[in-house]
């Protein structure tokens, strides 16, 4: 058995193992479908983002057009400032509205963009003014019960 060849194989094995560990540890952090160079960022403010997470998809008409880049809490307005990284290929009017939606009943949350009619397009670091918060199930049920109670109340 040639000593150097054997050492080479063991070395490759150890390196492969460590690479696999690193892959697991970093969990492919750089895997981003939309690259920074070919994208622009816009900010949308929401009263409540529900379960939205960074890197969640941004969809328009059901097509993924970008990803959530960052979510911060604005301590002055008490709103959530969500940075959306959109693909440069897609331009949206200035009065586009953003809503937080849920895919399926229990699925993950994403941002849906609804295009408006403004002739000017959104540019980098622009802000989306029309936003709709995530639907919180408890509030919905609360409203429903409240409405039912009102119905039954004597006039």
């Amino acid at each position, binding site marked *: *058995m040639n*000593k150097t060849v*054997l*050492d080479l*194989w*063991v070395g*490759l*094995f*150890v390196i*492969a*193992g*460590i690479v*696999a*560990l690193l*892959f*697991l*540890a970093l*969990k*492919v*952090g750089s*895997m*981003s*479908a939309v690259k920074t160079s070919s994208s622009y960022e816009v900010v949308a403010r929401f009263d409540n983002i529900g379960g939205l*997470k*960074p*890197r*969640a*998809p941004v969809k328009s008409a059901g097509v*993924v057009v970008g*990803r959530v880049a960052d979510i911060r809490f604005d301590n002055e307005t008490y709103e959530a400032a969500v940075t959306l990284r959109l693909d440069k290929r897609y331009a949206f009017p200035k009065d586009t509205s953003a809503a937080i939606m849920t*895919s*399926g*009943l*229990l*699925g*993950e949350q994403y941002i849906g963009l609804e295009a408006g009619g403004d002739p000017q397009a959104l540019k980098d670091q622009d802000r989306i003014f029309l936003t709709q918060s995530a639907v919180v199930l408890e509030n919905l049920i609360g409203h429903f019960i409240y409405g039912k109670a009102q119905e039954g109340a004597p006039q």
Partner: protein
Amino acid sequence: MLKQSIENLGNRTIQGVWRIGFAARFFVAVLLHSGTAFRRFGLTIREMYFTGVLSLIIILVSGLFVGMVLGLQGYETLQTYGSEEALGVLVALSLVRELGPVVAALLFASRAGSAITAEIGLMKATEQLSAMEMMAVDPIARVVAPRFWAGVISMPLLAALFSAMGIFGGYLVGVQLIGVDEGAFWSQMKSAVDFEEDILNGVIKSVVFGIAITTIALFEGYDAPPTAEGVSGATTRTVVTSSLAVLALDFVLTAFMFRGLG
């Protein structure tokens, strides 16, 4: 008749206790004589080639297929609840926490453990170990300890490769074949898998499994009756005992590690 069976039972119990005591003494002796395995690291590297590198094919291929099956089955179930995007979380957590260390250890036990037992058992049967003792070479330091450390080092690497391969398999089936959203697959996985809680605990598990398997395999080989029948019996016992030990240890370790999460 009755007396005979009681005598047999007692004899077996005494034999079992004797073997456990000898195995414990053997384990301590291996640890105490590990100096040579590190001073002459070439010996350990040689063994790592046989236990680690040669196990790569079976580990990688099994990992890929286990991941692909997880992707298919997980999708079927998650689809019912409309949360296909959680497929990445399901595949990654089941691999990193359980399947990676355990299945890799079971494969390692049958691929490398049996080979170690057969090799050492045959060395004993052909009196190579006695010959070493005659030349004032300690067989535990020269033969056993390098194999022990090679197994202990190889096992976590193999388990990590198994998990990584499995996640890749789950990605292939889930994202490329079925069409789960790629970003959601990775992002949900990333946000759900914790480094210390999941990955580090998986590595600790595989190190413990590595120690258990190599100790059992080396002991069975060292303790094998020096006949062809004895070596074959010892090889079978290695696979059975170390597989059971892996599963039992896995339960104990899981109970300790994830107690707070249940």
